[in-house]
């Protein structure tokens, strides 16, 4: 347990992606079976443990600690699991029988404990674990690690450990179970790649590369089909041998949040498409925006009301398996014909086919791209007619040609130091635009950006922050921003939505600092009305 606890402690505080991968890969290399398998399960969210209520933990602590002292402690630390892990004093009465404190032993013990036993089991474990392990243990039993590690990152660490492509891990993933003995055997080169018994597993998706100006010369429009790039999330729906699953692009199982879509799947096979909310083309109702879709994302369960208010559907892009038959080796045209047949017979309110965009020249397609017929379109996809469906992001068969980003001029308002390489630089910026919505003309923050600039530009920004700080709040500096004195930056972003969580009422997607506008005065920066006008009208 101690090694796992130490890993969690490091992961919580390590901001860099590559360092996180290294920490996890090193752990997987050195930890024994089946501990590492349970660690993998808890990091990737596949470990099922009945969780322990905070109330019970509090009761346990108060058996030993004065309530006032506990309250002072909790107020200071702020997190219940951490407070308990820190204040816990092992009981000095009666030498307790030493128990197995490996992660796997703990998991097994918790899984077999009856409701009535839980109290005693948790108390004994808290008594015998060291401080750091107590924290890991409490995180495990209260559910929700929240340590800034996604399932995809964990898989990346597995790929690094075994020196295999992450695609291989992803396609195996949903056919395997904790403690993943066969997976680790294979990654260590001690056995063959595991063979899966469950058919409805995730198959790594085919990804497109961005199209650049220089590509056109070598590409012939006649070799390609064009489709709109819809602004939802890319999904894979598998329905085989009685198992139905909905996977995100990275292979996370999101079935629980979309029972409406899964239940409607009346075909056998695996399709690739865009998950959207609203009406399908076949029902002649409007597709709704990404922010509406967000209402349904990141949920384990979904209410009936949610389903009614935000009905989900899939706009089909591709067919990987027709029934049990793997057709990924066939060309795009063939696969699409079979997809069209399948969707035609599927419920019209839950499935439609992504339409092709007719064009004869790149110029013509470019003008269509600039003025798409629907606000939920974020660009164009180009797919070679003769391309098979291949996992991963290979340059050539598929291209994405995004709509140009939005741009505004905004004023820097706050800055915060970055992490790692950037820990001595003010590199995280909050920027704002002008408004007189609530009275006098003032700047209102509209977003945060921490990339987009070059190293040289960062030095300029950092120097400006240091020389123009007006106030400090902990790690945050407030920067001088007046009509005639301040720093203007050009912010590029991919989209903008209404947001009730932000004071300004708007939220940007992927904002980044595109250019420093030292030539501009803050008074020339954009106004909130300009941003509000950019929000896609609800159709």
């Amino acid at each position: 347990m101690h090694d796992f606890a130490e890993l969690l402690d490091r992961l919580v505080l390590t901001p860099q992606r590559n360092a996180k991968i290294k920490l996890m890969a090193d752990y997987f290399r050195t930890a024994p079976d089946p501990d590492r398998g349970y660690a993998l399960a808890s990091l990737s969210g596949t470990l099922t443990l009945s969780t322990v209520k905070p109330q019970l933990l509090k009761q346990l602590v108060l058996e030993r600690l004065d309530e006032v002292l506990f309250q002072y402690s909790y107020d200071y630390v702020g997190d219940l699991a951490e407070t308990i892990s820190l204040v816990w004093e092992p009981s000095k009465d009666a030498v307790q029988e030493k128990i197995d404190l490996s992660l796997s032993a703990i998991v097994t013990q918790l899984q077999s404990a009856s409701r009535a036993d839980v109290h005693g089991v948790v108390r004994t474990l808290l008594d015998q674990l060291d401080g750091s392990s107590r924290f890991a243990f409490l995180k495990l039993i209260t559910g929700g690690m929240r340590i800034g590690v996604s399932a995809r990152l964990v898989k990346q660490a597995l790929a690094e450990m075994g020196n295999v492509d992450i695609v291989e891990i992803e396609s195996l993933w949903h056919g395997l179970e904790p403690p993943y003995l066969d997976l680790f055997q294979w990654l260590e080169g001690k056995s063959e790649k595991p063979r899966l018994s469950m058919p409805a597993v995730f198959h790594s998706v085919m990804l497109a590369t961005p199209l650049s100006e220089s590509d056109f010369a070598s590409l012939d429009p006649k070799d390609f089909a064009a489709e709109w790039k819809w602004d939802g999330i890319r999904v894979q729906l598998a329905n085989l041998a009685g198992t139905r699953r909905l996977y995100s692009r990275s292979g996370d199982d999101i079935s629980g949040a979309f029972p409406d879509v899964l239940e409607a799947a009346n075909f056998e096979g695996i399709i690739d498409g865009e998950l959207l909310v609203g009406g399908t083309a076949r029902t002649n109702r409007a597709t709704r925006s990404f922010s509406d879709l967000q209402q349904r994302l990141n949920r384990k369960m979904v209410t009936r009301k949610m389903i009614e208010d935000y009905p989900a559907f899939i706009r089909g892009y591709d067919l990987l398996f027709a029934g049990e038959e793997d057709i990924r080796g066939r060309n795009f045209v063939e696969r699409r014909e079979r997809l069209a047949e399948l969707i035609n017979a599927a419920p019209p309110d839950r499935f439609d086919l992504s339409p092709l965009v007719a064009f004869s020249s790149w110029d013509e397609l470019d003008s269509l791209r600039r003025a798409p017929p629907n606000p939920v379109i974020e660009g164009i996809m180009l797919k070679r007619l003769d391309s098979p469906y291949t996992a991963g992001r290979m340059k050539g068969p598929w291209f994405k040609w995004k709509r140009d980003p939005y741009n505004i001029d905004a004023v820097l308002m706050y800055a915060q130091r970055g992490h790692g390489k950037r820990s001595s630089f003010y590199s995280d910026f909050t920027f704002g635009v002008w408004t007189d919505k609530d009275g006098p003309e003032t700047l209102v923050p509209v977003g945060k950006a921490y990339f987009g600039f070059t190293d040289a530009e960062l030095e300029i920004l950092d120097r400006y922050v240091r020389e123009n700080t007006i106030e400090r709040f902990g790690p945050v500096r407030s920067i001088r921003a007046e009509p005639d004195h301040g720093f203007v930056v050009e912010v590029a972003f991919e989209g903008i939505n209404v947001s009730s969580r932000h004071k300004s009422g708007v939220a940007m997607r992927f904002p980044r600092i595109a250019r420093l506008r030292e030539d501009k005065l803050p008074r020339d920066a954009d106004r909130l009305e300009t941003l509000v006008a950019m929000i896609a009208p609800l159709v």
Partner: protein
Amino acid sequence: MLAGAILPAILLLMKPEALLYSTPRGLYCERGDFYIDPVQPVERALITHGHADHARSGHAKVLATRETLDIMRIRYGEDFCGTAESSELGKVLSIDGVDVSFHPAGHVLGSAQILVQAEGTRIVVSGDYKRRRDPTCAGFEPVPCDVFITEATFGLPVFHHPDDRGEIAKLLTSLKQFPERTHLVGAYALGKAQRVIALLRESGYHEPIFIHGALAKLCGYYQQHGISLGELRPATVDSSERQSFAGKIVIGPPSAFADRWARRFPDPIAIFASGWMLVRQRAKQRGVELPMIISDHCDWPELLATIKEVAPSQVWVTHGREEALVRWCELQGIPARPLHLVGYEDEGD
């Protein structure tokens, strides 16, 4: 007269509040006309240890251990006070009928508790203290007393400092795991930095350690005192040699990390050696990636154990989290009160 039999016995003992009380300038002994760790310049000051919030410059007369006086001289220059007098540990000096003596506190080199006694009343001002072994200074010695004045920097049940060898091991593991990164360790210039270096040496790390300029004189002073710190090099190299810091340990005061100074190092990993690092959120807020929980103060169980061991009839609590420690004393039936002294940093560890 009925009370006559009892009165003389009580009169023999001076009320502790009359012997020592807090004023805006610090803890004051009226009878001896001296202050202990005053926060403003005074006529006569007794100083427990050399940390800047306890040892300020500009007093007319200063009484402290020889090491504390040396440290003040290093930090403030030769004219840090009017006249300096050094006190040998354990030796009793009389100041206008008040007996004072200095006893090791185990906090940093030269740190001492001060025992103040008059008319049979004994008060120990512990200053900052710790109970763990520290290769760089003499260990705390409990001194029997009527009133024990304790700090409460880590006076909350959450604080359980782990074994410092384990914390040093974390740093050594990280050096192996990330040999391409500079391991930038924040540690206070007096005490903590030297202790971390000494602990690294004890753990078998014998590579040169690079130090920030602010640490140089104090490290030199510790070395003169026979505390072996191994090979130390200044962390000031021109940019052409940046890469030479990869996989090396660089130690500097925590404040230097936010500074442009930190930029000379390739891909630094931010480490901080402090008791505060126990709470993950605090480490996170400071942007610390590798917290080393190494403290020069007592943790909660050590505070309680010390109070039990010293067994005073009263406890006065100074800077830190007074309320929790006072509450604990109350639960134990030990009279206790906070002193509300101002001017001592709660953060300095």
